[in-house]
C-alpha cells in the first residue's frame, strides 16, 4: 500500500521557467513532509521540508506548498536551471511516541530542465 504517491514519472521544463512537482499522500498522521533530489550513483540530497502545521515553506528558489485537506503537496522551483535536472522524491514522516520516525517515499519524478 503506497502511502505517498508521485503520479508523474517525468517532467520537462525550459530553463528559467517554473517547475512544479506534485505529491499526494493518504495517511493523515504524517507530521512532516520532505523533498529530496537524487542524481545517479548518489544518495538522496535533502532539499526542503514542511511541518504539517504550515502551508508554505520557502528556501531560495525552492518553495513547498502543503494542502492538508487535499492531502497534497507540491514543490516549486523558480527559476529552473539545468543543474536541477535529477529525480525528485517526496517523503513523509510520522513520529512515534518513542521518538522514532521513518520516511515513506514516493516513486520519484524525473525532472529535465532544457537549456
Amino acid at each position, binding site marked *: 500500500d503506497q502511502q505517498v504517491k508521485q503520479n508523474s514519472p517525468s517532467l520537462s521544463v525550459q530553463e528559467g521557467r517554473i517547475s512544479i512537482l506534485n505529491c499526494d499522500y493518504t495517511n493523515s498522521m504524517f507530521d512532516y513532509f520532505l523533498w529530496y533530489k537524487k542524481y545517479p*550513483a548518489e544518495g*538522496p540530497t535533502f532539499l526542503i521540508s514542511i511541518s504539517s502545521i504550515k502551508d508554505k515553506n520557502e528556501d531560495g528558489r525552492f518553495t513547498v506548498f502543503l494542502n492538508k485537506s487535499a492531502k497534497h503537496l507540491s514543490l516549486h522551483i523558480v527559476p529552473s536551471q539545468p543543474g536541477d535536472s535529477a529525480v525528485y522524491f517526496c517523503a513523509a514522516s510520522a513520529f512515534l511516541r*518513542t*521518538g522514532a520516525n521513518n520516511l*515513506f517515499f514516493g516513486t520519484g519524478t524525473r525532472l529535465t530542465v532544457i537549456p
Partner: protein
Amino acid sequence: DAGVTQSPTHLIKTRGQQVTLRCSPKSGHDTVSWYQQALGQGPQFIFQYYEEEERQRGNFPDRFSGHQFPNYSSELNVNALLLGDSALYLCASSYNRVAEQYFGPGTRLTVT
C-alpha cells in the same frame, strides 16, 4: 564537515551468503536509519537505531539485522541472501526527534 559515509560502494555476493554494510553518520547526528531502494522505486525503510538500540522496524524479515556502536556508526547485516535482496542500500542519519534525514551515497549490492 564530513557527511554520511558508507562502505563498501559496491558488493557482489552469491545467493545464501551473508553481507555486512557499514555507515558513519554526519557529525553530531545520533540516529541512524537504513533504507533499501530497488530500481525505479523510492527508498523503503528497514530500521532505525538510536542509543545502540533498534527502536523502529519496517516490513523486512529477520534476515535483516543491524547494530549501532557507541560512536553512533552502524552496520546492516543481511543473512541468507536472496536474488531479490539486490538493491541500493542507503544509510541516513539525523538528530534524535528531528524529521530531516541526511543520506549517504549508498552501497550497491548485487546477489547472483
